[in-house]
């Protein structure tokens, strides 16, 4: 499937270039893995070797676990991708390509096909390796491929072609029709049909309208929007211009981006400036009667601002408190005017839908969730990163094929957390759930904006539920009582349970409170806050009961419940626990079972975390 999309996207960039190209992944994930120093080193090496090459920083191709990534494209050859590149491997890689006319097999991950280029023998194609097999890249197809700072790179991969098409040959109604046909639904997690939303805003009375991009990606464990903003910022801008055209010539748009994403904001601002210079933004765009401009509004750290009405309040300089709907933003939004609010990924899809057609987009996905969805795949799995799959792909395929399975071979899968603080945990029995809006809800979680955190048996379900509740409790804006007080009481109960002070009846009380908070909260934050607790009680009741009745934490996470005893049968006498003990309480001799002296043990958990066999409980 990926082949089709890749060929379709035609990597003209390399074709155009007669020079060799060195790409380096420089999104936040790359930078956090040392890409900046590596980039400097590449420039130095290139200069000292006197090479005529182009060095191009790119966004994230999704293989965050392999960062820093460096790709080399020699003229007439496929692009070769290298993982975890370090200074000493870099020299070997450059030697192979520039001195020996081959590739450095030891460090290569795959080769990315370049149309008309010669493949390398003995190296799998991108679409053949497990991480990419089964992925379909539409919204993320340019991420990691182009220089996000170059508007020409974007244009070379069909950028602003949708805008030209719309301005030269389509009416706003036709644009909305195409988006409706595509079946696209809000990718921020709400799942509201985008075409319907646009139509509502279009029909709202008044000449003054606004387009708002929700880039306040706050769910912990989710970074799909960051990847798109850092890797392909123009796609979001183009989507907003198309929205402005469709809803009735809106003149002004805002991108509300969270302050935790400084790099995304920087790249967006550069993209906006470049788009203005080429008249994709500004007055009479490309000679048409559409005039539209954009402004970035930086958030100031409040999760609730991802909720659309709270976002609008914040955008207008107020405390980010949600308001009851109706009125919906389509009727009364920014400055009281009709406004359309879409998530980053939703907007970045629009250009592709206009070019490929609504029917083409709808040919991917499941019955009620059309197209593709990006997911941030993290936690205790091998391949962590950003993926894009057709909606309805089974969870098992995402975790075990694309994700490569569990990171620790001996510790099995326990659950996947989907949908962040508003979502829930899906256990082993739910691994065959097709991941789309409806099926994930039946399984007790939500698809949400796309965060998937995989947990193994060494994770504690009660601790996870407590983590999310603490998060929502912190972030509750305090406006309505069920959310403000209810979440606090639930958190107190969960904290007691993890401290070994759980009582009979706690679970019933948690469920009762959950139901009350869900049905009486003002906005989505409160309404979904109990979900992580409800879904874990549904699937992992025994684990809660182990904490409450047996004062035992099966995942050995809750500090107060760990006994610091070595189980003889499980101890492999490997001795890993001994050197990590800061108080010298662990004694171990080669071939002997380790022993912990509880009189000196300071209960720091270093030995528990060091033991790969979970023999210390």
């Amino acid at each position, binding site marked *: 499937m990926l082949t089709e999309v890749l060929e379709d996207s035609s990597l003209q960039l390399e074709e155009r270039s007669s020079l060799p190209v060195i790409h380096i992944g420089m999104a936040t994930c790359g930078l956090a893995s040392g890409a900046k120093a590596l980039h400097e080193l590449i420039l130095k090496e290139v200069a000292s070797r006197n090479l005529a090459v182009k060095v191009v920083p790119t966004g994230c191709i999704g293989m*965050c676990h392999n*960062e820093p990534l460096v790709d080399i494209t020699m003229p007439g050859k496929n692009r070769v991708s290298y993982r975890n590149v370090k200074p000493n491997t870099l020299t070997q890689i450059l030697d192979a390509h520039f001195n020996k006319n081959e590739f450095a097999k030891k460090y290569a991950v795959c080769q990315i096909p370049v149309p008309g280029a010669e493949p390398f023998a003995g190296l799998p194609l991108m679409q053949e390796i497990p991480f990419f097999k089964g992925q379909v890249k539409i919204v993320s197809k340019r991420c990691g491929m182009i220089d996000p700072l170059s508007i020409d790179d974007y244009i070379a991969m069909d950028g602003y072609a949708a805008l030209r098409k719309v301005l030269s040959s389509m009416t706003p109604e036709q644009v909305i029709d195409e988006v409706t046909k595509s079946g696209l639904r809000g990718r921020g997690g709400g799942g509201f049909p985008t075409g319907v939303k646009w139509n509502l805003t279009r029909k709202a009375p008044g000449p003054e309208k606004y387009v708002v991009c929700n880039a306040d990606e706050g769910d912990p464990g*989710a970074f799909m929007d960051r990847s798109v903003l850092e890797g392909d910022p123009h796609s979001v801008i183009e989507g907003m211009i198309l929205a402005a055209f469709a809803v009735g010539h809106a003149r002004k748009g805002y991108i509300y981006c969270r302050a935790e994403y400084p790099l995304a904001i920087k790249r967006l601002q550069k993209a906006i400036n470049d788009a203005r210079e080429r008249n994709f933004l500004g007055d009479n765009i490309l000679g048409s009667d559409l005039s539209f401009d954009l402004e970035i509004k*930086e958030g*100031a750290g409040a999760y609730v601002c991802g909720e659309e009405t709270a976002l609008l309040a914040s955008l207008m300089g107020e405390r980010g408190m949600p308001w009851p709907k109706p009125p919906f933003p389509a009727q009364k939004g920014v400055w009281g005017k009709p406004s359309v609010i879409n998530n980053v990924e939703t907007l970045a899809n629009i250009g592709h839908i206009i070019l490929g057609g609504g029917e083409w987009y709808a040919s991917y996905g499941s019955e009620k969730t059309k197209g593709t969805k990006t997911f941030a795949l993290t936690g205790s799995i091998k391949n*962590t990163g950003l993926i894009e799959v057709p909606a309805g792909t089974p969870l098992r395929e995402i975790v075990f094929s694309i994700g490569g399975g569990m990171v620790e071979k001996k510790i099995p899968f326990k659950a996947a957390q989907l949908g962040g603080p508003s979502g829930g945990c899906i256990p082993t029995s739910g691994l065959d759930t097709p991941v789309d809006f409806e099926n994930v809800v039946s399984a007790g979680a939500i698809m949400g904006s796309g965060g998937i955190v995989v947990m193994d048996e060494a994770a504690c379900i009660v601790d996870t539920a407590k983590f999310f509740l603490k998060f929502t409790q912190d972030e509750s804006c305090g406006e309505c009582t069920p959310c403000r007080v209810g979440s606090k009481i639930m958190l107190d109960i969960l904290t007691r349970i993890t401290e070994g002070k759980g009582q009979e009846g706690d679970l019933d009380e948690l469920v009762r409170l959950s139901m009350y908070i869900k049905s009486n909260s003002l906005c989505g934050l409160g309404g979904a806050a109990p979900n992580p607790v409800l879904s874990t009680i549904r699937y992992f009741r025994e684990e809660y009961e182990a904490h409450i009745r047996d004062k035992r934490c099966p995942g050995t996470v809750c500090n107060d419940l760990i006994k610091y005893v070595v189980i003889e049968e499980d101890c492999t006498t490997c001795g890993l626990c001994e050197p990590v003990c800061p108080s010298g309480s662990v004694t171990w001799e080669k071939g002997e079972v380790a022993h912990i002296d509880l009189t000196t043990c300071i209960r720091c958990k270093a030995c528990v975390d060091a033991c790969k066999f979970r023999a210390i409980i």
Partner: protein
Amino acid sequence: MSQTKHIEVDQDFIENLCDEFGNREGTVVQILQRIQEKYGYVPADALDMIGEYLEIPKSKMYGVLTFYSQFYREPRGKYVLKICVGTACHVRGAGLLVDKVKEELKIEPGENTEDMLFTLEPVSCLGSCALAPMAMVTDTAYGKLSPDKMLGLIKDLESEHLSASEPA
């Protein structure tokens, strides 16, 4: 926590800021962001001056200021150690990083070291979950951290500060 001296607010700066933003709607958040950019926090004096200049009630200024977690009312250290405590970092040991900093620098979350060099600030998800646990210091991201690597980072920042303050 050490008692830190508040700085003197530059009246001209505030007035210029008000002239730039004052006639536009809904710019309180942006004004506060600009003040924080300059001073590293929002001094109470600055808040009062703006309120008076733009005729915005004090209650509203404080309401906005205290709503958002990224506005600070106290001066902060030169290096703010933003340790991500999002889900992926949490399950991969972000708590151990926070503990290590607390132990090493003898400060609690939100506090500064006495020499005003460091501030410990656990933050919500920084969006580099694939490299959990991670931290960010002055917009530079550090991935795949461990308590020992965290310690190394603190030492590196200390020596960076020393070499910067040495006379040339």
